[in-house]
């Protein structure tokens, strides 16, 4: 497909119109909230507005909620899922109202969110209940960050914060694990690697096997060569497929203990395993993982296991972002000066990769906030099917994104991992909108917040 065909035919994220109303006491306690969400589905139903309805107030413990959501078929291309579907727009509306509330009450924006933060047991709009979550811990880390404690000097500058939620998914995954004769371990899963999950899965296998991470080589098989896996989406792969990997590693070690017992002339229940060495408790000696792997031909042949899971409970994630901007009053141009992303990773399996997801999501969110947008004519034809007219953020537009990983381990994974791929795109547009409001005293309520829309908001030009 050409670039124009991709932009015209593969589905944008849905356009949305959102109204939010929040009621609070002077103390900052939010007592009621309502949202009215209308999302475009394109030519066929299915905008996933239900995600927005579920998530818009999910970071908060609000006793009275009303959320109305509509999925509207329009004469445009069918929309498609994009990182944390539908939820960036929901947070753009909801978190601006929370910010307005904070300023109206004279309460620090993070403090207001902490006073109303969801906690374990808080019920979401759809009736489900938060398990152990890191919502408060993320807000606390943001408030204590060097960025938030710094002074933002200079005219026409403003700081904004926003908080976001995304639920993960579990479901089905499988893997095959084999010991090679050189002592390495081959791991094959059916989950497509869209974000570095081969590494995070190999690391979990290595941890469970007591080996160095580089001893496990992970690759992705196709449908004909490995077991079924649900789609690599919903921030599920590291967590759900990780469960299958950990289960397979346990089975593998169990078989290897039996093999070690053959070599050491004892029984498998008399074998201890620790950090690559099988040791007989009755003093009959020990054998290393490598030696055992090389001796496969003497103990029954190659060792291969398969494991599958259907993960029925899973964690959720929260992120708080802080943005500093400068707004040119004559041109409306918004310059990002500083940006910090704080996120709960449960237990960060691969911290550098987690930071990569945080920066990637934030950068995409910055694009949504300031630049990207599909423009259609009245007949539903795309007017800007090129990256010249549908601008993505570049390295010149995005400052170094500071990251703070918060770790509140999930109870649904042996290592506490949570899915980290999506929540990072939830807060950026709202954080930048709140920063623009702090800089100009005016709200921009449409995305992207282009220079023209900023000038409309500040009254320099008419819309």
């Amino acid at each position: 497909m050409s670039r124009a065909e991709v932009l015209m035919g593969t589905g944008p994220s849905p356009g949305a119109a959102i109204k939010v109303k929040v009621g609070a006491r002077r103390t900052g306690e939010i007592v009621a909230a309502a949202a009215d969400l209308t999302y475009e589905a394109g030519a066929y139903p299915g905008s996933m507005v239900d995600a927005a309805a579920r998530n818009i107030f999910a970071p908060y413990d609000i006793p009275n909620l009303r959320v109305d959501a509509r999925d509207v078929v329009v004469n445009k291309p069918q929309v498609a899922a994009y990182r944390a579907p539908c939820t960036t727009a929901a947070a753009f509306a909801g978190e601006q109202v929370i910010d307005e509330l904070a300023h109206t009450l004279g309460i620090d924006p993070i403090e207001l969110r902490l006073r109303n933060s969801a906690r374990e047991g808080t019920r979401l709009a759809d009736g489900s209940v938060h398990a152990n979550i890191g919502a408060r811990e993320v807000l606390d880390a943001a408030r204590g960050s060097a960025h938030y404690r710094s002074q933002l000097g200079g005219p026409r500058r403003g700081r904004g914060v926003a908080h976001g939620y995304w639920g993960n998914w579990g479901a089905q995954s499988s893997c095959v694990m084999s010991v090679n004769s050189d002592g390495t371990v081959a791991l094959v899963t059916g989950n497509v690697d869209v974000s570095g999950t081969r590494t995070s899965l190999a690391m979990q296998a290595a941890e469970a096997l007591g080996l160095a991470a580089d001893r496990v080589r992970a690759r992705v098989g196709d449908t004909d060569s490995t077991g079924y896996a649900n789609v690599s989406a919903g921030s599920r792969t590291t967590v759900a497929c990780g469960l299958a990997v950990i289960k397979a590693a346990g089975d593998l070690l169990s078989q290897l203990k039996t093999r070690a017992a053959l070599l050491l002339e004892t029984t498998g229940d008399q074998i201890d395993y620790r950090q690559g060495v099988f040791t007989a408790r009755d003093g009959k000696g020990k054998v290393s993982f490598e030696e055992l792997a090389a001796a496969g031909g003497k103990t029954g042949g190659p060792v291969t296991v398969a494991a599958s899971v259907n993960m029925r409970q899973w964690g959720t994630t929260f992120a708080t972002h802080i943005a500093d901007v400068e707004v040119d009053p004559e041109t409306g141009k918004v310059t990002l000066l500083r940006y910090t992303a704080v996120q709960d990773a449960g237990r960060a399996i691969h911290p550098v990769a987690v930071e990569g997801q945080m920066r990637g999501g934030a950068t995409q969110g910055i694009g949504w906030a300031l630049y990207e947008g599909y423009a259609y004519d009245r007949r539903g034809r795309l007017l800007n099917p090129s990256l010249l007219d549908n601008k993505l953020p570049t390295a010149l537009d995005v400052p170094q994104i500071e990251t703070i990983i918060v770790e509140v381990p999930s109870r649904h994974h042996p290592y506490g991992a949570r899915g980290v791929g999506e929540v990072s795109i939830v807060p950026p547009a709202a954080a930048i909108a709140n920063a623009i409001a702090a800089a100009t005293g005016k709200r921009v309520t449409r995305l992207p917040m282009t220079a023209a829309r900023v000038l409309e908001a500040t009254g320099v030009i008419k819309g």
Partner: protein
Amino acid sequence: MATIWVPALARELVGGAETVQAAGSTVGEVLDDLETRAPGIKAALVQPWVLISVDGAAAELGLAEPVREGSEILFVPAISGGQASR
């Protein structure tokens, strides 16, 4: 008895209630019990795109999922990344 959280679009079948109680040892039996008082509720709740959750866990057995005394049953529209089903 189990507690069923009724999605907003089905609440007119149960007189507008957010939650209702019904008896049974599986999700299917609970819904059959509720159906006697709220005709049409089972068809409204059991849809291919709806995830049934019992006590916070996805019900992999669907209507055959066991239910305990005091269980909470939710019917949640499935949400994930990837292409939306048409």
